[in-house]
């Protein structure tokens, strides 16, 4: 059973993602400190809250360096969820500019509501995979996943985009570069479809 | 604290049971109301009904009796034969039929009836048992479904207009008034009270590889089909004063076989003898609601003045909710093996469905279990306001 490290960024509930990983056959454990990452076969970075605070928290625990070592160095498969996906960018723009982990050249920007739309983007919406991303293996394109966010990642390179969602003029809902994966939606709240994504991640 | 009926020992946690201002439950009240019934009148009604729906020339059956071979269905068949009727008896094979259960079915046939047994695909059935256990905490869920769907499907297919059920479970076991008054069964009744626990057959599709084509026998006929044939159902328990023990005596006199000792987790040896998975089913009732088969039986006997309430409390403490290590002598490992589950997983599922509020827990909030895995309820009887009594499993 895959040992999956769930990084504790001090945000709210980690139970949901841990339970979901368990249900998908993984062996989750929570860690907020670099040594914890060394035993992991997979790393998951969840996130709820604000970009600057989350990066500050990672830095203060030495996790930014440790994560880069494990993910970029040792090539451990990584999944960022919601804010966790946004943190892999080079730059966040919430409440001023903050440097992210920088693993994918990208900026995090506020969603622009189209007429009739509201921000934050909350609810079930379609995810349209653009490439052969292993996370979406076995899933019909256009299935709905659960979103709750106001910001989204905009990769500089098209080949890093794994899926888009038709809202706010269209935004990137999943990224993939090598062993780094990110999803803007919450797979642990998206039931069967979400579980398939998690299982695919565990099976990499 | 758990509140109990002051007359019997049923707790308030039972779905659809209502305890009134005098502290008496609806099942006890329903039983009390029986005294006012004119049973002669009811019998006349029954005969009229049977005449109306019966076959004029013997070319079809007079009625259809859903049977299991148990004390009640054996009794129903005997009564119908005594009334000179020609019933078709229909069984939906149970989840794990015991040897004594099979013998009782043979006995029922030899009372002198045509008999059809429908066995659902056992390989698929096991998967449904497993899924029902992990998803709704009721391993016998598929049985609750087929007990209704199979006889009704056959009634439609064979053009038999009258189905004769036994007791209306909502009546004696307590249930909303709307269900108790009526004595006929329609699809709405089934959905609401048939013990389906909110799960529908259509929910199974896509789970554990189950497909729509596996669920034919679990599918209730449409309202249109029922109307075309004109199928209606009655409960015999409306027309005669129903008593499980009395039924058992009568059935035994006609060859029905009982177990050589009280069945595990129960107080008696004359019922629930056919399905070996029943031990698990009854145990989960205890985990969810705080009462098991021993409580059910104690209440039935209290109402008929065969047990005093204080005696019942003692018996319930002793027998109710015992971990089902064995049922009809079959060890739990064998039962779990068939549904592809290990004991550890089973215990995890038990804990998940246990209503922690009803049982003694330690300071960390974990359930307290004895050496055999048995739980203790927080209280086994109503606690007076000024004298809190700790509960313990003493005998």
């Amino acid at each position, binding site marked *: 059973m895959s040992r999956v490290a769930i990084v504790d960024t001090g945000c*709210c509930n980690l139970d949901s993602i841990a339970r979901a990983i368990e249900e998908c056959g993984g062996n989750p454990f929570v860690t907020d400190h670099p040594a914890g990452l060394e035993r992991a076969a997979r790393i998951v970075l969840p996130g709820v809250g604000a970009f600057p605070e989350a990066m500050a928290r990672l830095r203060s625990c030495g996790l930014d360096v440790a994560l880069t070592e494990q993910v970029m160095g040792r090539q451990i498969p990584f999944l960022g969820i919601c804010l966790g996906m946004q943190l892999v960018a080079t730059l966040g723009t919430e409440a001023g500019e903050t440097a992210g982990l920088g693993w994918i050249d990208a900026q995090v920007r506020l969603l622009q509501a189209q007429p009739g739309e509201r921000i934050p983007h909350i609810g079930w919406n379609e995810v349209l995979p653009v490439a052969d991303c292993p996370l979406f293996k076995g899933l019909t394109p256009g299935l709905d996943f*659960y979103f709750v966010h106001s910001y989204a990642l905009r990769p500089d390179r098209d080949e890093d985009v794994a899926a888009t969602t038709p809202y706010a003029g269209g935004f990137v809902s999943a990224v993939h570069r090598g062993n780094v994966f990110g999803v803007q939606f919450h797979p642990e709240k998206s039931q069967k479809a979400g579980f398939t994504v998690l299982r695919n991640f565990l099976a990499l | 604290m758990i509140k109990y009926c002051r007359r019997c020992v049923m707790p308030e946690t039972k779905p659809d*049971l209502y305890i009134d201002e005098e502290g008496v439950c609806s099942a006890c009240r329903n039983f009390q109301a029986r005294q006012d019934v004119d049973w002669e009148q009811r019998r006349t009604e029954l005969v009229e009904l049977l005449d109306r729906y019966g076959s004029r020339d013997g070319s079809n059956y007079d009625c259809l009796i859903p049977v299991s071979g148990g004390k009640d269905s054996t009794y129903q068949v005997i009564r119908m034969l005594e009334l000179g009727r020609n019933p078709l008896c229909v069984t939906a094979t149970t989840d794990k039929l015991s040897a004594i259960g099979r013998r009782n079915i043979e006995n029922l046939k030899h009372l002198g009836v045509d008999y059809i047994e429908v066995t659902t695909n056992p390989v698929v059935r096991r998967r449904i048992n497993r899924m029902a256990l992990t998803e*709704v905490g*009721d391993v016998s869920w598929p049985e609750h479904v087929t007990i209704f769907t199979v006889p009704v499907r056959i009634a439609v297919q064979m053009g038999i207009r009258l189905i004769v059920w036994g007791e209306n479970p909502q009546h004696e076991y307590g249930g909303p008034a709307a269900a108790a008054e009526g004595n006929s069964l329609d*699809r709405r009744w089934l959905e609401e009270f048939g013990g389906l626990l909110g799960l529908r057959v259509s929910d199974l599709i896509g789970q554990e590889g189950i497909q729509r084509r596996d669920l034919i026998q679990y599918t209730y006929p449409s309202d249109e089909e029922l109307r075309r044939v004109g199928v209606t159902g009655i409960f015999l328990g409306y027309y005669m004063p129903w008593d499980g023990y009395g039924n058992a005596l009568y059935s035994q006199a006609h060859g029905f076989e009982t177990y050589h000792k009280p069945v595990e987790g129960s107080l008696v040896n004359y019922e629930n003898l056919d399905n070996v998975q029943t031990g698990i089913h009854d145990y989960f009732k205890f985990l969810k609601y705080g009462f098991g088969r021993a409580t059910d039986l104690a209440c039935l006997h209290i109402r008929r003045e065969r047990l005093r309430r204080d005696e019942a409390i003692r018996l319930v403490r002793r027998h109710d909710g015992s971990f089902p290590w064995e049922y009809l002598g079959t060890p739990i490992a064998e039962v779990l093996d068939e549904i592809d589950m290990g004991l550890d997983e089973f215990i995890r599922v038990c804990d998940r*469905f246990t*209503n922690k509020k009803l049982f003694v827990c330690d300071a960390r909030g974990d359930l307290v279990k004895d050496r055999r895995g048995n739980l203790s309820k927080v209280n086994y009887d109503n606690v007076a306001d000024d004298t809190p009594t700790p509960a313990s499993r003493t005998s």
Partner: protein
Amino acid sequence: MLKVRIMPTLLYKDVGLVKGVGFDSWRRIGSAMQTVKVYNLRQVDELVLLDIRATLDGRGPDLAAVDELADECFMPLTVGGGVRTIDDVHALLMVGADKVSMNTAAIEKPELIREVADRFGSQCAVVSIDARRQSDGTYEVFTHAGTRDTGLDPVTVARNAERMGAGEILLTSIDHDGAMDGYDLDLTLMVTAAVQLPVIASGGAGTYQDMADVLGQGHASAVAAASMFHFTEQTPLEAKRYLGELGFAVRR
């Protein structure tokens, strides 16, 4: 585009789930755990869990119970009942609630809505409004599980909630609750016309058409239902199919 949501509502009383009619005549319907698991199996869009005794008993939310149930809930979960302080909200979010619903507190201490929105985000803050139709055709809002009148009308309360930063309104018709005779379209339209927030219609769902009516004519963003799913053969999946065929954007 964002999909309309179908949300079963679970009413929790003391030890298990109940269902009533007109906020009265409570029937015990069984184990909360089994119900949560069934809805999870049925892939419902969201689940609402309300502790209907908490405020009347003068206590806060039952965290142990929510914790256990949240563990089996792999879709968004809204929890309400007895929420009075920011600590109640924080505690509920920590044990697994995704959103917290405030009913009595929203009227008695509306600043709490602002606190929740600021600290946890407005997407966590649901304001629950229970209303009864009066003999003169107007509506009045009630707190304390429908037992205390407030002299306030639903539009005022909804507007105030929006001003305070709420993310959603859960609007329940006490009269139609449990009756399965259709949602209160007038009440729903009155509120959806007055605020920009998504409104979840609750109280009276009996058929799939009832849901279509309140989504279409009432402009609700989501529908809550309890009796309809507990007591009839209708299922959330079929509801979605029905609504999908009528052209509503439902979740795939």
